[in-house]
């Protein structure tokens, strides 16, 4: 157990280091003036201000010292300063992150629950026509880039059918209005999450189905649904957990794209605006936050895995 735990901790620490290094190194090793990368390209400044910034950002000091200062900044919540938006990056992200988490959280909940349950059913009943149809639909949806899925749903339900509003979520702070605005983006992301989990769960139930233990349970007279949801599911869900960590980054970035399409005021639009004007501090800060979230998601999945599968630690999974 300790050996595995140690290995896991080393890997998480190493990934954090890589993430921090990416954020720290890129502005400094890119060809061109690092100041430009640290304040953003389109900010127009005089040479004096530039020189002043150079000192203020610590760029005249040796690299190890810069790294130390940078690390200290990150640890105290200082993610840099956006000269475009005249605001610290941390507070920019802090203002928007709630909306993104709301979108991601709701969709993950819906998408995972629906995907796992119906994926299990589809794998169990893999010979049925309806199961095959659902699998086909799952493959199709997972083949559409998330932003395109958003674009298609947006043009159908907002432009053509006018069922949902264009934008303006933030003017009326009333729960029904928020739900009305969030419904379609949540549906889009949930659909996407649902399709991916459906396929993973299906594959994993198909494998488990051919094991001997469901057969034995059947021979003891346990009804099919009980075998599926009481026996097979518990084993079959493990790949979903392993996949959750990997998927998290993907789903999160999918959420960013969906925000852009639906003009939600979350991290995605922040990122989109930052890309257009090459606001590097914001981009770096965003990457740092998303990457740390991904690491946390991994840890969470690891812990959950240990709860569901008692064999963890024995076989070194």
């Amino acid at each position, binding site marked *: 157990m300790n050996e595995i735990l140690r290995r896991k901790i080393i*890997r998480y620490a190493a990934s954090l280091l890589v993430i921090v290094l990416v954020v720290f190194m890129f502005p400094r090793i890119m060809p061109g003036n690092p100041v430009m990368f640290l304040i953003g390209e389109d900010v127009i400044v005089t040479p004096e201000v530039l020189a002043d910034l150079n000192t203020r950002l610590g760029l005249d000091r040796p690299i190890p010292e810069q790294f130390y200062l940078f690390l200290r900044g990150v640890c105290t919540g200082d993610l840099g300063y956006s000269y475009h938006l005249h605001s610290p990056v941390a507070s920019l992200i802090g203002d928007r992150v709630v909306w993104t988490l709301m979108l991601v959280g709701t969709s993950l909940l819906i998408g995972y629950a629906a995907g796992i349950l119906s994926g299990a059913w589809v794998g169990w009943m893999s010979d049925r026509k309806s199961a095959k149809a659902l699998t086909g639909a799952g*493959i199709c949806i997972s*083949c559409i880039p998330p932003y395109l899925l958003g*674009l298609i749903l947006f043009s159908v339900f907002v432009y053509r059918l006018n069922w949902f509003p264009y934008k303006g979520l933030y003017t009326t702070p009333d729960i029904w209005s928020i739900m009305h605005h969030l419904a379609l983006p949540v549906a889009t992301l949930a659909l996407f999450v649902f399709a991916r989990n459906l396929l993973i769960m299906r594959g994993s139930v198909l494998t488990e189905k051919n094991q001997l233990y469901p057969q034995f349970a059947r021979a003891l007279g346990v009804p099919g649904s009980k075998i599926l949801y009481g026996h097979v599911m518990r084993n079959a869900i493990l790949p979903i957990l392993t996949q959750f960590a990997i998927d998290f980054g993907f789903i999160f970035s999918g959420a960013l794209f969906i925000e852009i399409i639906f003009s939600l005021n979350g991290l995605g639009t922040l*990122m989109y605006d930052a890309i257009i004007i090459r606001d590097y501090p914001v981009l770096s800060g965003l990457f740092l936050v998303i990457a740390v979230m991904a690491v946390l998601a991994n840890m969470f999945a690891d812990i959950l895995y240990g709860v569901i599968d008692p064999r963890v630690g024995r076989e070194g999974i």
Partner: protein
Amino acid sequence: MRRYLLPLALIAVFATMAIFPGLIAPFTPTERFTTYQAPDKVHIFGTDDMGRDILSLVIYATRLSLFIGFASGAVAIVIGTVIGLVAGWRTDILDDLLMGATDIVLILPKIPLVIILAAYLSPGPWLLILVLGLLSWESVARVVRSKVMQVRSADFVLAARCLGFSDTYIIFREILPVVFPVVVPKFVLVTASAMISEASLSFLGLSDPTVISWGVMISDAFNHGGFIRKMWYWWMPPALCIILGVLAITSLAFLHERGAREVVQL
């Protein structure tokens, strides 16, 4: 074999579009006409904001979209297979190091990382291929490694060693063929996801604006009024191409799964 027909036919159509765009497209991407034309007999999908024929653009864009997908898939497969083979065959510290590296690449959120890299580098297609390939090998390495570990001490490998075959022969002629069936669907899936990533990056305006890909076209439509003007015939054709392309490639992997009883995961 019949079930492979439809995806293979689709891929063949796309391949023709990619290799001989001049033969199929009615115009070249440089010819200009009146802007924002609705579809008619001459311009089946109308024209865009710069007056280019949309159908011709879609056809000319195929090459880049497919190329980026397949090339990054190839990069990822080569790196992943080599690392997986080595890590699976060796049981020493090298295995630990390689798997550690794999785990780290696995944890890093790919698309945000590509976005920040692209923002700094303003990449051309080659750089994009390299970056996407370098960030997608980890799943390949993992399946290859676990498969190699499965067969490393199998009787047929022992038998081959007994008969006097060299290690190189055993790795490449005995183990690689066994690993190959799990690599093929992975290649297909990495290719498909690279196509999706490319389209997504282009949508954010993070690809080389001088070349056309399906993603760039959708991004143009979104940013240059195609959407507000309800010109579905502008963004729909490239969107359909991406979806059908990815679908055709992915379904090959799933059909392979049915054939080989291997369960693939996205």
